[in-house]
């Protein structure tokens, strides 16, 4: 149990969408900006499932024209993960103005990732509708 205590402390220190609402009930502008940013992140992460489902469907089509669509989806995924790896929430010692500016700037970056997701996923869905997965070969009809 003693070993767990530091871990709990670390977790408590991590940012969380459920964190930080001022005691008067209203989040500060910086906190509200952080919550909006993390909500957009969670929304995009939910779309990652769809992105990988589309990728699997395109692969299953075995179409020679699939390359650009697969690369588009891979680029969208890389943009999302790149954002995540680069994201460094300001520490609690930062001034509210610095925190607010960081979250607003990151919101702009993530909005770009969101547009990339939408565009590549729409294209991929259209490609799939035009190149359906080949039907499984029918069972041979027994000869009489």
């Amino acid at each position, binding site marked *: *149990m003693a*070993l*767990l*205590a*530091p*871990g*709990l402390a*670390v*977790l*408590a220190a*991590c*940012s*969380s*969408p*459920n964190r930080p609402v001022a005691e008067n009930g209203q989040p500060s502008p910086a906190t509200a900006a952080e919550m909006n940013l*993390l909500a957009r*992140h*969670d929304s995009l*992460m*939910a*779309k*990652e*499932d*769809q992105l*990988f*489902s589309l*990728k*699997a469907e395109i692969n299953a089509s075995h179409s020679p024209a699939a390359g650009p669509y697969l690369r588009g989806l891979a680029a969208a*995924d890389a943009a999302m*993960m790149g954002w*995540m*790896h680069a*994201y460094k*929430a300001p520490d609690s010692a930062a001034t509210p103005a610095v925190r607010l500016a960081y979250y607003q700037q990151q919101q702009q970056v993530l909005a770009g990732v969101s547009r990339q997701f939408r565009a590549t996923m729409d294209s991929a869905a259209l490609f799939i509708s035009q190149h359906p997965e080949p039907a499984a070969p029918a069972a041979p009809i027994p000869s009489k």
Partner: protein
Amino acid sequence: MLKRLFLLSLLAAAGLTACSGPGTNSAAHPADDAAGASLARLPYIGERDVRPRADGGPADTVYATIPAFRLTDQAGQVLTNHTFAGRAYVADFFFATCPGICPKMQGELLKVYTKFAADPRVTFLSHTIDPGHDNLPVLRDYAQRLGIADARRWHFATTGAHGEATAKDTVFQLARAYFTAAEPNKLAPGGYAHNGTLALVDDQGHIRGVYDSLNPTEVARLIEQLPVLLAEIDARKKGAAGR
């Protein structure tokens, strides 16, 4: 959002059907009935297949199981379905740099772990959905920061320990298998790998509960239901030993 609502409905339904009396879903494993007839049972969740028996007896109901997997944990240990055979485990999906729900999700799972840390009948398995970044040293560091010293008790695992090009595809397929197995409506929007869901898996690879880690009531329900599953597994083992 629709998926989220559906999942919550499912969670509520699972809660209502949990701990039902003998006979619930027991057709899945008729051989268990003698051993566990007087035990409460958790429901089997997911698709089922009814297979007639050649001898004309009552049809068998076969429930979906977790598909075959091969992972590597923070200690470099290879994990397969066989690693978890005969034991219950709680599974989730996370990634080390997640700034959103993961810290809260893993914090809630830590509460469950703390309750069962000394019980070898249950283990914990967290899959990273960012295998490109979360290599073994990152997973080791993540586990240590969470206070997990024994990798055999809580595995933080990757599908990409050897730089597999399809590692991320594989883990998303696995996430869908865990949670679509618990959800009949496969047309619902995505989020399987990042919705904060915890899955309780039995000793035979069946999903026996899904819980929303972002809801303390759901986490409490997992803590309450885990012993029910462990008692069932114990009874099954005793039944097998007695035969």
